[in-house]
């Protein structure tokens, strides 16, 4: 009773709704897939609630449950080595990405770096390109017949400049194409930091870099770790890159899981691997929480300070050069993709055999509807994730809802195909028949991409001091109103960063789309995928270019819009 009373406030209801949402659309579906690892057959949980027959069927399934799958997975040594390989890859990628991102993020958020706008725009591009396209682009550049290899060899080099079919190759592709996942949230963290602290440090004799290392950087650490978790998970669960680039002796856990499920329809095995992956994510998550418990510094205080841009020419110049170098690789890859999109064919030679615009013509005659669908679906998912993420980060930071925090991190690590199957299995029949609707697609997108938003907003939220919110509540606002009118707007940098990530990744999402998109809602990513399917790499490339242009245009519009409003 008391509990009810305490939680039946506006914000309490919101919390309940969010929990219900996640339990319904994430936990139960995943649970049902997990159960499959015992029964080896699809299970209809909700159906069992309304139909005796289904219930009996389900019960009989459970009576035949075995733990064979577990035995076979745990007795198979390859999975253990796959796990170790995956961990090695993800840690390495996370660390390199953090190192690469810190200077660029600082440059964008806090300096008057030359070409800032251009660099910012270029930094979103790597996200837009589907991983297999970027992996192929990498081959076209660095492969045996790649143009970079060609240049390198004609300059007297031997063999590869970089071997794309190697651990290094995978690391490089992931670093260069995943770094924006960390970059944008980090930019947000730097944007909300309190400048007077840096001034204090400078005043005590620190040079600007020392100030950065000892004050700016440590203050950004909570936000940064929050995003490192994203990189870790994205790298850990990416299979697009390794499936194309992994040398045969490098087995990775996701790839194994993907093979189990996609190649052999072995849901049981895949479910177990997924559980292992979630456990790993849980461990990393715990690690992060454990080491940084109580270190939410709250730099943005109730004594407002103005953010001042660092205009040290040397610093901003070199940051600009560094950022330029980092975006150069994805940029060249994009250029390669672009060349591919206007090529008739592109074989052994360093340049395409001929040029054509037919691929683009095809797109504009056949796929305009897909583009429209993509935008609508992505906007839907975006709005849903903004709302959920704002509240989730509020609960996580202010009310210490670690459970919610973890729950919104899990989708990062669950392979898309597993999550899609889980959703179909759960929502394919009455009482909750949602498959085939745009609604479930939007929900699935939101849940799957929400972590990017949550990580980013949690980071920003942590830098907002509690006294500001207390003041709002003290002035009579309910916690809900305070969250919406004070905390929300202050989190804008974080929300903006998250929005870029969510919007783009939803637009390029394939694994769930293939499984769940109804024909009338087929988005762009599905069209690209189909082109890949029919080996139409040139059209796929053209589509990717269209996607990139589309996102850049939308981003420019959003920028202009938001600058006017805020």
């Amino acid at each position, binding site marked *: 009773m008391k509990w009810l009373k305490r939680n039946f406030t506006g914000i309490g209801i919101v919390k309940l709704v969010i929990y219900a949402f996640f339990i319904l659309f994430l936990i139960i579906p995943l649970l049902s897939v997990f159960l499959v690892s015992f029964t080896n057959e699809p299970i209809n949980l909700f159906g069992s609630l309304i139909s005796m027959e289904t219930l009996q069927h389900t019960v009989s399934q459970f009576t035949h449950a075995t733990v064979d799958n577990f035995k076979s997975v745990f007795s198979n040594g390859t999975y253990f080595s796959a796990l170790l390989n995956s961990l090695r890859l993800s840690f390495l990628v996370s660390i390199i990405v953090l190192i690469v991102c810190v200077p660029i993020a600082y440059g964008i958020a806090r300096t008057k770096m030359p070409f800032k706008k251009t660099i910012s725009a270029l930094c979103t591009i790597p996200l837009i390109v589907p991983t297999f396209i970027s992996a192929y682009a990498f081959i076209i550049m660095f*492969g045996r*017949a790649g143009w970079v290899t060609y240049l390198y060899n004609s300059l007297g080099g031997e063999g590869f400049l970089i071997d794309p079919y190697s651990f290094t190759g995978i690391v490089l592709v992931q670093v260069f194409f995943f770094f924006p996942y960390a970059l944008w949230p980090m930019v947000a963290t730097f944007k909300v930091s309190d400048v007077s602290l840096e001034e204090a440090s400078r005043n005590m004799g620190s040079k600007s870099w020392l100030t950065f290392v000892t004050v700016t950087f440590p203050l950004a650490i909570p936000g940064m770790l929050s995003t490192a978790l994203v990189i870790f998970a994205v790298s850990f669960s990416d299979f697009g890159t390794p*499936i194309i680039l992994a040398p*045969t002796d490098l087995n990775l856990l996701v790839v194994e899981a993907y093979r189990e499920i996609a190649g052999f329809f072995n849901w049981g095995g895949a479910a177990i691997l997924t559980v292992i992956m979630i456990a790993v994510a849980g461990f990393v998550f715990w690690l992060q929480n454990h080491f940084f418990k109580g270190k939410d510094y709250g730099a943005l205080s109730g004594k407002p300070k103005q953010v001042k841009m660092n205009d040290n020419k040397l610093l901003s110049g070199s940051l600009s050069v560094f950022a330029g170098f980092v975006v150069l690789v994805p940029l060249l890859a994009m250029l390669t993709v672009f060349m591919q999109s206007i090529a*008739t*064919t592109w074989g052994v030679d360093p340049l395409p055999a001929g040029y054509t615009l037919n691929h683009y013509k095809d797109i504009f005659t056949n796929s305009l509807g897909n583009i429209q669908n993509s935008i609508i679906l992505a906007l839907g998912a975006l709005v849903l994730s903004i709302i959920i993420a704002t509240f989730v980060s509020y609960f996580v930071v202010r009310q210490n809802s670690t459970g919610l925090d973890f729950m919104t991190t899990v989708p990062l690590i669950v392979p898309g195909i597993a999550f899609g199957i889980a959703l179909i299995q759960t929502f394919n*029949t009455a009482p909750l028949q949602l498959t085939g609707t745009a609604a479930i697609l939007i929900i699935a997108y939101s849940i799957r991409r929400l972590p990017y938003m949550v990580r980013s907003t949690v980071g920003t939220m942590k830098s907002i001091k509690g006294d500001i919110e207390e003041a709002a509540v003290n002035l009579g606002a309910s916690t809900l109103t305070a969250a919406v009118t004070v905390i929300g707007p202050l989190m804008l940098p974080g929300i903006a960063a998250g929005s870029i990530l969510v919007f783009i990744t939803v637009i390029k999402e394939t694994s769930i789309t293939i*499984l769940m998109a109804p024909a009338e809602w087929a988005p762009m990513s599905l069209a690209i995928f189909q082109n890949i399917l029919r080996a139409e790499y040139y059209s796929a490339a053209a589509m990717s270019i269209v996607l990139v242009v589309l996102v850049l245009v939308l981003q420019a519009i959003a920028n202009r819009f938001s600058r006017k409003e805020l």
Partner: protein
Amino acid sequence: GEESSGGEGGKEGGKPITLYSPETPELSKELAAKYEELYGTKVNVNYAGTNVLVNKMMAEKGNPQADVWYGGGGILPFEAAVDKDIITSYIPESAKDWEVVENGIKVKHQDGYYVGAEMFVLGFAYNTELVSEEEAPKTWEDLLDPKWKGKIQFPNPAASGTATLMVLSYMMQHGEEVGWEYFQKLKDQANSIPDSGSGPTKGAAMGEAHIAVGFDFMAYEHQANGETVDFIVPEKTPILVNPVTLVKDGPNPEGGKKFMDFMLGKDAQQILADWYHIPINPEVESKTPLSLDKIKEHAVDLDIDWVNENYDRIRDEWKTKIQ
């Protein structure tokens, strides 16, 4: 559910048919359009990879959404689907009198769970700028020639059905011990072993590989796009039909059956031929240099039951035995 409403199908209009097809989307679309043109019934096409579609059908078991399923890179996924209890038996009139196995090729399921619509040949794609026709390997053993070291790609048997087929057929012919020895050597020849069945052929087209293992139509499709690839049918090699089948408890079974009839008819077979597939209907001429007649002496005898029994084991052993 919406089963109660809707007509019997077959007449003008009628209840739409849902087709699940992992084959080239444009091809499937053409098939659907042709059917609609002929019978006036709308055919909704759902494309995705074979794996995705099978998983989808498994997940949808409580309330299946598809009526017909066409294609899957050969019969193996269909054999598996029989066990998964997601397809049901139906053989069109025109295929009633076919033997189950003709010329060593299994063309339909013994209990009628699927029927072949076209032929796939496993062979070698090669980049014509890098390799001349004479040089190109003619037998599976030729692949071990040292001159191909680091120049071959083949799909990964741990992931791709096409590749597992290659492994199994070799083992059936030469025994397992010789087989493992062979594949260890083949693996050492390869510069990449992608997961996807079509990956190696793509690699050959890009010049990443000189020789690639894959199905005939993959190479011919690239060739038609202007890429410098061609295809060799090895001396003895697995040849498979690519089937079409009726989904169990689909929303429109009558429509599904009619569509299967259509698939074996001349109109559909012509479309397949136009997409460089080898039609199963001998009356329709192939667009590629290959035809049923020309390839049947290359076919190895495939004991599909043996394949079904040993599939999982061999795949697991591949993961541990081949380093």
